[in-house]
């Protein structure tokens, strides 16, 4: 260091140097500044820290929005050379970036069927267009993952070409699987509808076969060898009926094992468990509807519906509150049905689960049954609880609705079709005791062979039968008949007039006449359509002779 004071020229020179140094520091071209005591690497370290932070941020964002990100350098001959890959590449592809480099082309990862589309995508990217594509990746072990790849090309003005492609890849295998399941469910529903139609016609035919066989057998003398042949016919017809039932069950996806059950009894069984489930901060109120009708559902699945709804309500009340479960018999009328898609007017059993929790806004309410839609934090909900509720209720022929107000609470209402069958298996176990009578029965059935058969059977049991092929003719017969008509036995679906309409018309002149419906539709469906009422006998086709005579007797003996 020089002891003499610096000249003006020297000072100017130092100032220039200081300015140059400052410029270099500002531009980030310096590693360190020289302080009076030491060399300080302030700026360089800060940049390093910023870089580290930026890398961390980038890594986290990459993880959040995608499963892995990549950059390909585009050579002049348009080959793509992987520059870097970050994130879960190995987890998704079960390959390393080095494997990719060795294989030469990224399309080697792609499922052969998707390769043409993948090449087309590369062409678009190289032409400078952004691209979002979904395709399958095949792992070395043959496993397949669906991915969604968002590619972004970087255009270089000087070279007038794309020089780099950035991409973010998401594993969408789960989503694809759900989509496929939904498609599958739709397909199953179509098949189910077809099967249901066929089964309906089959049931009529099988009823004739089963009942005629029984009739013939009754006329045979004991020990007649032809009885064995008739037994064979009966067995075959029973097998066909079983097949028809399976066809119907298939359309409802098989695992469904419906039984007639009562929601009040189910709630009684569950109450202790529900109390444990919701904890001490929440008050549980169960209001059981009086003389609650039965429903037909898979008991395990219905339990699941209740549990899922209760858990959902519990989670909506983190600070406690009241959880109310109600049951009731309800009649959903035409007005209600018109405003609720998929609802058929009729008698239902209502299960309502209400909480005094946080409630939900319109957007949430609209999506609440969507698979994987959840407002709960990670690890708290799968987003499938309410979807499961929806699926089970639909499968049980019911509907589920949600009503909610922010800050007030939420009510889920499940409507299940009310069925007239008793809880016990009494009907199945009932001994085929001869059920006879002498009353007059007006029979209306448009299917000739079935009409003849029912007439024959009932006459053989002692009844007087007036048989009509159309509702119009039935009303005419009723008018001409001088004596009482004790029972109207009619099909539900007929040309010109439906069974219930006929019953109403007949009731005008003969209010004392009772009605018994028979139908190839399941009783469940008949109840849903308001064709049957709780507590009233109903004749399911196909039926055999003893079921026919038993049910007719039951209908005649029924009160009112």
């Amino acid at each position, binding site marked *: *260091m020089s002891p003499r004071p610096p000249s003006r020229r020297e000072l100017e020179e*130092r100032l220039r*140097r*200081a300015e*140059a*140094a*400052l*410029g*270099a*520091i500002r*531009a980030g*071209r*310096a*590693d*360190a*500044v*020289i302080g*009076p005591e*030491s*060399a300080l*690497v302030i700026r*360089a370290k800060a940049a390093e820290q910023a870089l580290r932070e930026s890398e961390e941020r980038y890594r986290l964002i990459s993880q959040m929005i995608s499963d892995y990100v990549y950059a390909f350098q585009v050579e002049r001959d348009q080959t793509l050379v992987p520059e870097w890959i970050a994130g879960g590449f190995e987890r998704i592809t079960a390959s390393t970036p080095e494997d990719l480099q060795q294989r030469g082309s990224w399309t080697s990862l792609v499922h052969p069927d998707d390769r043409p589309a993948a090449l087309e995508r590369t062409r678009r990217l190289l032409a400078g267009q952004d691209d979002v594509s979904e395709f399958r990746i095949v792992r070395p072990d043959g496993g397949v993952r669906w991915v969604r790849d968002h590619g972004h090309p970087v255009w270089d003005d000087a070279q007038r070409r794309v020089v780099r492609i950035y991409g973010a890849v998401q594993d969408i295998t789960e989503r694809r699987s759900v989509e496929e399941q939904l498609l599958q469910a739709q397909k199953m529903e179509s098949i189910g509808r077809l099967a249901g139609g066929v089964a309906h016609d089959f049931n009529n035919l099988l009823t004739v076969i089963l009942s005629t066989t029984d009739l013939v057998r009754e006329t045979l003398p004991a020990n007649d060898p032809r009885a064995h042949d008739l037994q064979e016919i009966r067995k075959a017809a029973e097998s066909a009926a079983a097949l028809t039932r399976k066809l119907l069950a298939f359309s409802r996806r098989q695992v469904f094992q419906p039984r007639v059950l009562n929601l009040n009894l189910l709630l009684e069984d569950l109450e202790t468990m529900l109390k444990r489930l919701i904890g001490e901060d929440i008050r549980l109120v169960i209001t059981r509807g009086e003389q609650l009708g039965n429903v037909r559902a898979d008991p395990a699945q219905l339990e699941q519906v209740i549990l899922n709804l209760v858990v959902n309500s519990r989670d909506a009340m983190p600070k406690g509150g009241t959880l109310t479960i109600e049951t009731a018999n309800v009649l959903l009328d035409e007005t209600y049905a018109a405003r609720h898609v998929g609802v058929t007017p009729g008698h239902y059993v209502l299960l309502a689960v209400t909480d005094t929790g946080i409630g939900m806004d319109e957007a949430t309410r609209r999506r609440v049954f969507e698979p994987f839609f959840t407002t709960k934090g990670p690890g708290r909900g799968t987003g499938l609880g309410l979807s499961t509720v929806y699926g089970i209720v639909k499968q049980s022929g019911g509907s589920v609705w949600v009503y909610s107000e922010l800050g007030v609470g939420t009510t889920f209402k499940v409507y299940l079709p009310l069925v007239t069958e008793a809880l016990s298996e009494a009907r199945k176990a009932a001994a085929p005791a001869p059920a006879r009578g002498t009353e007059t029965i007006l029979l209306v059935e448009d299917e000739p062979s079935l009409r003849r058969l029912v007439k024959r059977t009932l006459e053989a049991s002692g009844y007087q039968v007036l048989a009509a092929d159309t509702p119009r003719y039935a009303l005419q017969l009723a008018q001409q008949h001088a004596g009482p008509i004790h029972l109207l036995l009619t099909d539900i679906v007929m040309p010109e007039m439906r069974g219930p309409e006929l019953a109403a018309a007949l009731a005008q002149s003969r209010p004392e006449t009772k009605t018994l419906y028979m139908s190839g539709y399941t009783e469940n469906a008949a109840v849903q359509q308001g064709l049957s009422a709780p507590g009233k006998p109903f004749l399911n086709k196909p039926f055999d002779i003893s079921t026919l005579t038993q049910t007719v007797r039951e209908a005649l003996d029924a009160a009112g």
Partner: protein
Amino acid sequence: MKRRGGARRAPRRRGETPYRLRLFVAGNEPHSAQARATLERLCQHALRGRCHIEVVDVFQDYRAALEYHVVAVPTLIVEEPPPVRYIVGSLSDEATVRAALGIEGGTP
């Protein structure tokens, strides 16, 4: 302590201008490393070895930096031939360095 690890000494030839260069670096920090590499390459090729480089690491000897009024590193001081010139930064802009060394557009 001065570190002279980066010094390049070449046989002096008659009639050729020798270059005396002093490069201040901060250890192996990125700009410093780049500056050193650039300078050594220029010295070997463009100057055909007619240069003497003294590398000063400010982590080892920051007083030298004070003595030469160096504010930020890397800084290259071209001491000879005169006049004395300072270049701050990583020397990534080779054209500027060549101009400062007077070898713009080819070898002198």
